[in-house]
């Protein structure tokens, strides 16, 4: 039986053209190209719809009432105590605001599942809790985005995301964030990968945001494999702090994680810790930074903790400016300096996933050019 959300806007998602436009910039596509869609705007779940029998997409509050297992997934990977942001979210556990996505056991979902959170109210306060369950042997592609309209500059967004990948589950995901210039954003992401699960993810953080702090923790079980890349841009007036923790907790777990940072006048602080908790685990951490302007700062601190014998962990970190040698090389083929710089930075960021919208790639290029010309 297919559980259907009470929010099912079928033919028309009741989105304005402006809303569609900003959602497109963070990966949205119409329902013919997606197997399921959920869109949360301010404090209301505007759309929660699935056209795939094996994908359940609904507001978390509704999932709590529909599936008794949903309550066990909430705060299943983290305790709220001691963290004001999480306490605020946990205060609404009986009526939470957020996306619930469940891909049923064995499902092979051809079209991506998409979910978005938008803050449309200037000076709005948004506390969200998303739960994703990719069940045993399921295979899915996921696109998620969080954004604001151009007229929203200030506000506060706090989100907790808990992802459960059951044994043998596979996912490929892209997430894109684009916030307002005077916003405060706190995001907490927890993932649990069971035996043989495989995850490949790309996270992109664009735009100016006064203060963005993101914490993530991935816990890998036996033979689980995670490949992740994060792309972070910090323009003038932006501070982004990213704390990542990856635990290889059982034999055969593998992880490759790379963070690529571009500071164009802003500050990026990246602390990444890779923990080898079991034998025969392998992991790699990469933190690479590119500074486009004299102002701003990149702090990259990759750390390794080997707790088990024969855990093979490695890391690398580099921070630098765009090389004049590379610029000269491309310019000698007739590219002007801005185009050459854009090509180098886009290459550095590896913006080559099929699910990274062209608009995102163009926006990155535009930001790079503006940063170079002092426009930011």
């Amino acid at each position, binding site marked *: 039986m297919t559980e259907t959300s009470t929010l099912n806007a079928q033919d028309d998602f009741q989105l304005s053209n402006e809303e569609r436009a900003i959602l497109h910039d963070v990966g949205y596509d119409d329902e013919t190209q997606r197997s399921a869609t959920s869109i949360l705007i301010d404090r209301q779940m505007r759309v929660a719809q699935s056209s795939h029998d094996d994908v359940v997409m609904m507001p978390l509050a509704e999932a709590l009432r529909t599936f008794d297992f949903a309550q066990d997934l909430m705060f299943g990977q983290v305790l709220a105590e001691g963290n004001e942001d999480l306490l605020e979210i946990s205060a609404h556990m009986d009526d939470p605001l957020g996306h619930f996505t469940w891909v049923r056991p064995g499902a092979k979902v051809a079209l991506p599942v998409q979910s978005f959170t938008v803050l449309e109210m200037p000076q709005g306060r948004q506390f969200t809790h998303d739960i994703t369950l990719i069940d045993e042997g399921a295979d899915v592609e996921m696109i998620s985005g969080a954004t604001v309209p151009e007229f929203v500059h200030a506000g506060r967004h706090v989100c907790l995301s808990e992802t459960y990948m059951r044994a043998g589950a596979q996912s490929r995901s892209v997430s894109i964030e684009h916030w307002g210039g005077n916003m405060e954003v706190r995001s907490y992401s927890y993932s649990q990968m069971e035996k043989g699960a495989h995850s490949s993810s790309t996270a992109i953080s664009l735009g100016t945001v006064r203060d963005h702090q993101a914490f993530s923790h991935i816990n890998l079980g036996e033979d689980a494999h995670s490949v992740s890349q994060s792309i972070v841009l910090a323009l003038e007036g932006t501070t982004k702090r990213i704390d990542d923790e990856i635990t290889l907790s059982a034999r055969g777990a593998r992880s490759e994680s790379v963070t690529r940072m571009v500071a164009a006048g802003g500050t990026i602080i990246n602390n990444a810790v890779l923990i080898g908790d079991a034998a025969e685990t392998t992991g790699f951490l990469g933190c690479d930074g590119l500074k486009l302007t004299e102002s701003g700062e990149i702090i990259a601190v990759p750390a390794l903790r080997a707790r088990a014998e024969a855990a093979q962990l490695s890391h690398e970190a580099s921070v630098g400016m765009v090389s*004049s040698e590379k610029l000269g090389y491309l310019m*000698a*083929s007739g590219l002007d300096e801005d185009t*050459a710089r854009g090509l180098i930075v886009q290459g550095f960021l590896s913006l080559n996933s099929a699910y990274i919208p062209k608009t995102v790639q163009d926006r990155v290029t535009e930001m790079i050019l503006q940063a170079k010309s002092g426009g930011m």
Partner: protein
Amino acid sequence: MLEFKNVSVTVGDREVVRELNLKIAPGELHVLMGPNGSGKSSLLAAAMGLDGYHVTNGDIVLDGQSVLGLSPDKCAKRGMGLAFQHPPSLDGVTYTAFAKAIGAENALEEEAQRLDLAQFADRDLNVGFSGGESKRSEVLKLVLQAPRVMMFDEPESGVDLEHVAVVGQAIKRAVSTETSDAPLRSGIIITHTGLILDHVDTAHGHIISDGRLLHSGDARALFRHVQSHGYRAPAA
């Protein structure tokens, strides 16, 4: 016409080219020979306006207009191009992205095939290339750019014998290809091994040593002289 008029070039505080004179007429292909560190590569880099190469004396003139002080892209726009001796690695920049950026994506597949680089479209530029692949890739880059003056910095060094012919034929074809904006192209090749001479049509050779042009003459005769006497001017 590309003309080096009494050109001196410094790199850092070292003078590497000294009062050098050379004329390359449309349709001509010239070969520069000289030992390592003799200033050949610096001469081409200075002509291309690359960072760190300063023309301290004389002038470099293309079709009657000086190119001194122009940035590399302006030099390229004026019709010059350089196949680098040591191209930098560009992680994440695929050949396809590069070809698209210079407006040559339509020519990429066919030209890459000709240089035995058909599988390179999705590879990052100069990343993990062998020595030979790197040289062929640089020739491909210049073929795609199709400038009126093509400068090749040691295009055959490190290339296996089979591919030297491929590189040579590509250079020969590129230099002789006529288009409406470039009815007659010209070229300069720097060579150490001389192997490229078997595959290109050139009558113009030059020996450069210690930054100075020592002698000009028939390219193949000069190369035979270099093989037997080293980089010295033949006796008068």
